[in-house]
């Protein structure tokens, strides 16, 4: 699948950009030319050789802060997506096999989650649980789970009621065989697509949260945090807030592009949202009255 994604120009662009971002996450703080925390009297300095993006209102090197903040932002977004994956996909698949009660219960739970507004809930929960990044990520992860639930449920539904699974069963296939050979290939692509979208969404939410001051405490840097703290000085030193904003936009855009590319090559577009009940093996519908 990776090969096919790379064969698309959108896939190449997306992977290219995201690889750079990933490198930033890993090597960010090492690559920073200056210590991001060191203040200096050169406040709001413009771009120069020693300060590639100038300095912020405390004289700290913007570029270094950006690099240092990469890890927190990126790791945060990925963590959120992973939490959403587990909280969403597992009940999604199980809802098809564990009976009507479980199905109903999870569907209603997911419907409730969808109706909650992200940021308000994240803010409220962190207010309750204390201002820590872990709590915030957990909450956001759970809030983003419904997409995974729906996607994995839809894929499982279509496989569960399919005739090719029955054909395998007629030949004596065990449930494990069916999952390995038939279910996996149908569930993986839509999950991969949703993962890419969710990482992008996770980025936006985490950045928004840190913009609002929730999560990572200053002076530690995150992109959202940088954006918020330097926004007031926009007129004097635009690079400080603009740079993280641009990075956020580009990263999210690349995530969405990647999701599109995966979706295009796996031909699973548009099948994500369905609350259809699986056709348990009933005989054919009988005609009413005379035929």
């Amino acid at each position, binding site marked *: 699948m990776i090969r096919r994604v790379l064969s698309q120009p959108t896939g190449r662009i997306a992977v290219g950009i995201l690889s750079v971002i990933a490198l930033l996450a890993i090597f960010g703080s090492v690559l920073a030319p200056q210590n991001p925390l060191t203040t200096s009297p050169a406040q709001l300095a413009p771009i120069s050789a020693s300060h590639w993006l100038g300095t912020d209102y405390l004289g700290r090197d913007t570029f270094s802060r950006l690099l240092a903040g990469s890890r927190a932002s990126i790791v945060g977004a990925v963590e959120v997506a992973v939490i959403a994956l587990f909280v969403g996909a597992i009940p999604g698949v199980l809802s098809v096999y564990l009976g009507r009660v479980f199905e109903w219960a999870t569907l209603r739970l997911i419907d409730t989650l969808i109706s909650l507004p992200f940021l308000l809930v994240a803010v409220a929960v962190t207010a309750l649980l204390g201002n820590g990044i872990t709590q915030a990520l957990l909450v956001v992860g759970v809030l983003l789970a419904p997409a995974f639930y729906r996607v994995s449920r839809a894929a499982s539904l279509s496989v569960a009621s399919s005739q090719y699974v029955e054909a395998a069963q007629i030949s004596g296939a065990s449930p494990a065989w069916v999952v390995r050979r038939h279910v996996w290939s149908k569930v993986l692509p839509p999950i991969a697509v949703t993962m890419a979208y969710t990482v992008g969404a996770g980025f936006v939410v985490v950045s928004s949260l840190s913009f609002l001051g929730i999560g990572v405490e200053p002076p530690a840097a995150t992109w959202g945090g940088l954006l918020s703290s330097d926004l007031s000085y926009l007129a004097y030193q635009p690079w400080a807030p603009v740079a993280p904003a641009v990075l956020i936009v580009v990263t999210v855009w690349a995530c969405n592009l990647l999701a599109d590319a995966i979706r295009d090559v796996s031909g699973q577009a548009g099948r994500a949202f369905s609350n259809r009940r699986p056709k348990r093996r009933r005989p054919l519908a009988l*005609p*009413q*009255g*005379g*035929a």
Partner: protein
Amino acid sequence: MAFAAGRETGSTVAARPVAGALLSVRDVHIRDRGTDREIVHGISFDLAPGKAVGIVGESGSGKTLTCRAVLGILPDQLVVSAGSITLGGRDLATLSVKQWTEIRGSTISAVFQDPASYLNPSIPVGPQIAEVIRVKKKVGRREARDRVLELLRSVRLRGPESVYGQYAYELSGGMLQRVLIAAAIAADPKVLIADEATTALDVTVQAEILDLLAELRERTGLALVVVAHDLAVVAQVCDEVLVIREGDVVEHGTTEDVLYRPQHEYTQLLIAEHEQYGLERFLDAPREERA
């Protein structure tokens, strides 16, 4: 719409329509403007009131396109490139959109394969037929309903009152096709085209629908065009048969001539297949001779 756009070449020299014929198809050629390929290479037949003409051919032979041309519903890129179609004395090429709307349903009507897809699934079937009547005959709601019940009776549906209020999904294939026939004859057309109308039905149900068409023909003088891929289906109902293969009419004659004295080898092949794989092989003696 293909007809309103007119023909591409000048009218070919063709015999004048037979007097008294309801529908006259004269040397009609149909061309695909997109690929610039001719698909139907000259088909002609006349239909007098109360008569039935059958067209037999495989999928892709052009039989359905001919029906669509007669109904004025050819896809945009297909045109009648030569020949003429006359209905009730009027040349269909000269009709405006308004005139077409007028004659559809009241002069000529049609039923197709897969009846369910021609009905709105969220409205009961009765009101859908009533709508046809109210639009075409300009009568009020109550009278329309009465006429619908009458129509449902005339297509031999049992319990017309309850069928009136049922939804498409509650009715079997055979019942749905009857409902559509009822809708098709609601405005008392003179010609009914049945394009593969029984292809998807069980054999007993198919016989019912074919018998119904024969009965309608006898009772009301309705003229029929029956299109099928099975020669026996056409032979059951029609007086005259055309066999079409890849756009060419390879056989044209009375049913008796075609069945007992087929000229073209393709017709002979169709007959041979029936005799080899059909029920004929097992019937020891003609039914009349058995006690």
